[in-house]
Every structure is written in C-alpha cells, then in structure tokens.
C-alpha cells in the first residue's frame, strides 16, 4: 500500500498548493481565474486577426488538445492515476458529437446553438463512460490500471470496425458543422471561427478545471495521490475521490475529442489510436505533471513538434519515399525520446523547470515579509 500512485512530482512544487486553504497570494481564486480567462479570450481574439489561416487552425487544434491534456493532468498529475485510455475517451466525445450533429442535420435543425448542445452531449456521454472506467480504476493500482486503460485505448478504436454499421469502420463519420454566423460578415475566415469556437469551449473548461483544482476537491485529489492511507485516515473517501477525478478528466477529454472532430469535420478511428493516448501521456509528462500550465505546454508541443519535423524533413531534400517515412515517424521518435529523457532527468517537466526559479523567489519574498 505504501507505493504511492504519484508520478513523483517534485514535492516542493506541490506543497504550496496543498497547504493553501485559500490562495496564498490573497484575493478570490474565482475572480483571479475569471480575469485570467478573460485576458486569454481577448488575447485569442486579437491573435486570431493577426494569424494566417493555417496557423489559426493549428492554434485551434492546440486548444482542442489542451482540453484533453488538462483533463489528463488532473487525473495523473493531481490524483496519481495513470490513464493510457484518454485517446479512447476523446474518440467517445468525437463520435458523440458526430452522431448529434448528424441527427440535427437529419431533422433539418439548422441553428447556431446545435453545436453547443452537441458538445455538451459529448461531454455528458464521456462523463458516463469515464465514470464506468473510473469505478474499475479506483480498485486498481499502478501497472494494473495502466494495463486496463491500455486495453481500452486499443479496443475502443477497434470497436468502430467491429460495429461498422454504426460507426462506418475505418472511414469514420463526417461531422457537419455550420458556417460562421452571418452577423460576422460574409468574408469571415472559417479558421478564425473554428478558433473562436474551440477557444471558447477550452477556456470555459480550463476555468472550471482551474477552480476545481484550487477547491476542496483539488486538495483531496492531491492528498489521495500523495498518500492513500493518510488520506483515508484524514476522512477522505479515497475511492470516491478517484472516481470523481476520473469523471472530471474524462469529461475534459471528451470535450477535447469532440472539438477535434469538429475541427476535422470527421470522426474516424485512425485519429484516436493508441498513439494518440501515448501522445497525451507524453504531453502531460513533458509539460509537467501536476500543473495545468504544464498541460498548455504539452498541447502546444503536440501540434508544434510535428510541424517542426515537417519543416526539417522538407529542408533536408530527402528522396520522397524516405521523406514520407521520416515525416510520419520522426515526431513519434522525438516524443518517445523526450518522454524517456524527461522522466529520467526532469520529472517536473517544462513547467517544473520554469517554475522552480519563480517559486524560490516567491518563497523568499514571503518569508522576508513575515
């Protein structure tokens, strides 16, 4: 039992959070998060006017991934449960949004609000699935949980082929999405609209997650991660906490998958393979387990690294066959190496490296004041 479930987050970095009944910098957490979110939204709108369409689309993809990486951060980083099945949960969200949007279209319901409803349904369905897996997960530890979620990650995409009457096999389902509202003008770039939609949904999700993390629930999550026995002795219902973490995390992953499907305007098993699940783990580990800011780094990396390797392979002027192999696989190889190296050399990830100097300063400042 003494084996903790945490992926060794540097103790010092987490300590200020766990201790704080209220935010140590004073002021209301909710207000601060609201301000942050608003600032991010304004920034996003501003940026969306300055970027070329392709970059705008990439930024929207980052936002979609960010939902999933933030969800996984809550689960793995804050609650210590490792899930290799978040790709499958994203697939659940993606297919749900596909079904909903198609159902609306079949009934000729065409309106701006349908997408919001579809996304909400996608989150709800994933939450239910997440609750089922979470109940099982709460009884499992370490490598056993990893094994089960790995099985989920491999089996779920295969189901789309098994029941191809429903899911249309490898081909997948198309996701009909409305054009931008007419009020925005006839020449409003579609990519900008995509960024606005995904950005809004993601910021909302992050706001909710951010508040959860700082709340009583967030503290119980961390308490369970750090020491299950101690948490139990402190009166925390460990299993319930773990299920809750899984449910929240699943909901976020479902939203991320749904947004990805909306962006790609399709949901297919190839987009949600085991590799995606491993990517998500990689993203949260490299970004830095245990902090939502780390999830941002992870999501950015997921989009940026393939882009960089693409540029690299192009510049090398390789023969086309070799270039094709390189392009698909080089990012994978780099992600793999990064995962191994980060786990061995810097388990705190990018965010851990960044926040260390900042934390030291903050602690010094606080001690000097008191």
């Amino acid at each position: 039992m003494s084996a903790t479930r945490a992926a060794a987050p540097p103790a010092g970095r987490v300590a200020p959070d766990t201790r704080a009944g209220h935010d140590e910098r004073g002021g209301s957490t909710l207000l601060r998060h609201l301000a942050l979110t608003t600032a991010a939204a304004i920034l996003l709108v501003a940026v969306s006017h300055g970027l070329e369409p392709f970059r705008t689309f990439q930024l929207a993809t980052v936002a979609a991934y960010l939902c999933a990486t933030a969800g996984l951060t809550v689960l793995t980083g804050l609650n210590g449960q490792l899930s290799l099945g978040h790709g499958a949960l994203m697939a659940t969200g993606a297919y749900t949004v596909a079904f909903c949007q198609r159902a609306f279209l079949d009934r000729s319901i065409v309106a701006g609000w349908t997408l919001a409803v579809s996304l909400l349904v996608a989150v709800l369905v994933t939450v239910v699935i997440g609750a089922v897996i979470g109940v099982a997960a709460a009884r499992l530890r370490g490598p056993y949980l990893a094994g089960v979620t790995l099985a989920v990650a491999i089996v779920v995409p295969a189901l789309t082929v098994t029941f191809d009457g429903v899911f249309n096999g490898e081909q997948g389902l198309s996701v009909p999405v409305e054009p931008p509202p007419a009020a925005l003008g006839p020449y409003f770039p579609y990519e900008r609209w995509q960024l606005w939609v995904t950005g809004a949904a993601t910021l909302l999700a992050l706001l909710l997650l951010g508040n959860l993390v700082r709340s009583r629930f967030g503290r119980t999550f961390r308490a369970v991660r750090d020491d299950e026995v101690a948490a139990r002795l402190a009166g925390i219902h460990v299993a319930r906490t773990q299920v809750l973490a899984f449910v929240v995390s699943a909901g976020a992953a479902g939203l991320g998958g749904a947004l990805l499907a909306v962006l790609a305007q399709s949901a297919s098993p190839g987009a949600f393979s085991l590799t995606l699940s491993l990517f998500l783990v990689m993203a949260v580990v490299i970004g830095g387990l245990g902090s939502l800011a780390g999830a941002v780094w992870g999501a950015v990396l997921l989009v940026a690294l393939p882009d960089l390797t693409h540029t690299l392979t192009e510049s090398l002027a390789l023969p086309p066959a070799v270039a094709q192999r390189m392009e698909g696989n080089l990012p994978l190889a780099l992600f793999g190496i990064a995962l191994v190296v980060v786990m061995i050399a810097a388990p705190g990830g990018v965010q851990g490296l960044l926040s260390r100097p900042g934390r030291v300063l903050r602690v010094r400042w606080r001690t000097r004041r008191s």
Partner: protein
Amino acid sequence: MDRFLFLTLDGLSRGAVYAAFALSLVLIWRAARIVNFAQGAMAVAAVYVAYSVSTSTGSYWLGFLAAIAAGLLLGTVVDLAVMRFVDHRSPLNPVIVALGLVLLIQAVLGMIYGNEFRPAEPPFSRSARTVGGLAVGSPYDLFVVATVAAVVVALAWTFTRTAIGLRMRASAFAPEVSRLLGVKVGGMLTLGWALASGVGALAGMLIIPTELGLHPHAMDLVFVSAFTAAVVGGLDSPPGAVVGGLLVGLLLSYVSGYAGSDLTPLAVLALLLAVLLVRPAGLFAPVTARQV
C-alpha cells in the same frame, strides 16, 4: 464437435504464444517490479531483424536465430541504458518510460521499414491436418506448441536447477541480502531483462505469421492479450502465466470462432476487467501476493 475440437487446438496453439509472451512479462515483473509495456514493441523490433536477415539470406531459421539474438540484446540495452536510471519509487515512472520506448521503437521501425504490412511467412504449413478422421492442428501449430513447451521447460530448469537461476531468483526476492552473499545483483537483473526480451522476441516470431503480417504495431493487441494472461495467472507466477496464456488463447479462439473475430479485442478487455475486479491477485497467486 469437429469445429469445437478445431477451435480448441487453434486456441491452444495461440495460447502457447500468449503464454510465452506473458512469461516474458512475468520474468521482468519478478526481477524488477516493472510491467514492461515496451515488450510488444521490442518483440516487433526483433521480428523486423529476422525479416531483414531472412530476406537477405533466404533462410527462415537464420532469421529466427537473429530474432532471438536481437531480443536478448535489446533487453540488455533497455535495462543498461534506460531502466537502470529510472527512479523506481513511484511505480508509474517505469511505466511511462516504457511507453516512451514504445513510441521510439515503433517510430524507428517505421522510419526504416515504412508503416505498411510486410508479409511474414510461417516455416510450416498452417492448414490443419487430420489423422484417422481427427483434427490434430496444422504443422505450424505443432511447431508453435513444441517450441513454447521447450522454452517453458528450459526456463523452469534454468530457474530451479541451475546456479545462475538461483542467483536470479535470490536477487529478485532479496537484492541486498543477495549482494552480501556475493551475487552480482545488477548483472542478474540485466540477465533477466535479456531473457525476458528474448522470450518476447520468440513469441513475436511465432505469432506474427498467424496475424495480418509484420507492422510496427503488430504486437499491440498481442501485448494486451498477454498482459491479460499474465494477470490471470497472477503477475508473480510463471506457471500461472503459462496457464493464463492457454486460457486466454482458448477464450479468444472460441470467441472468434463462434461470435466473430472482430469481437476478440472486446473479449480480452472484458476478461482483463473481470479478473482484476474479482480476483486481482490472479487465479493462482496466494492471497497475500499482491502489494500495490
């Protein structure tokens, strides 16, 4: 009845491979308390080596030997170059590192060989034979079962009857005491990785010709099945892994024979969940065996 017998034989042959692969997982679990999630990818890499050797020499058997050698080598390298440096205090760390290895190995294979299926020919016919009106499985099935049986016997003999096996078991159970008794524990651990990876490579060689072919992801589902087999047997028990492997093989054979092969992944997942939720220590482990 004929069909049942056929499916049973097929299941035993398949199960033998799962048993071998599950055994490779159990070997590392016992030696290092790590579930090696990279075992599937490592096995595929070894089979690609066999593919290269076989296509250039024209000999299946040279390829076969090359795969085993590659497996042994890969296990050694993974232990010495990677796992030795991982902080094992949290059980998640080695799992995450193994996943990184999965990504890396599969990507490297994809770069060298491309992400398409390569044909993998079995050395013997895979069509079932009948003797006196009774199905006895295909020559390849017999080869698979005999090979796995030989490996299982050889491993059992090594571990229970030889000095090196005694050293390996002692280092796994009590590393510090073993060191005081002059056992080079680190070396035994590396040997365990090498052996396990060699057995995994052998399992890959045996199973890939019965599947769609050679592909960087060819062992993904096999890994899950073998993990399930190992869990069924209790991760700590080599005999349990063998029995678990055979059980999983039979189950999958019946499911695919009677309900459709598309359903086998779902059946594996259901079995894994059922075993973990009902009897998490496995069917064969003593009640107190699992400490997590």
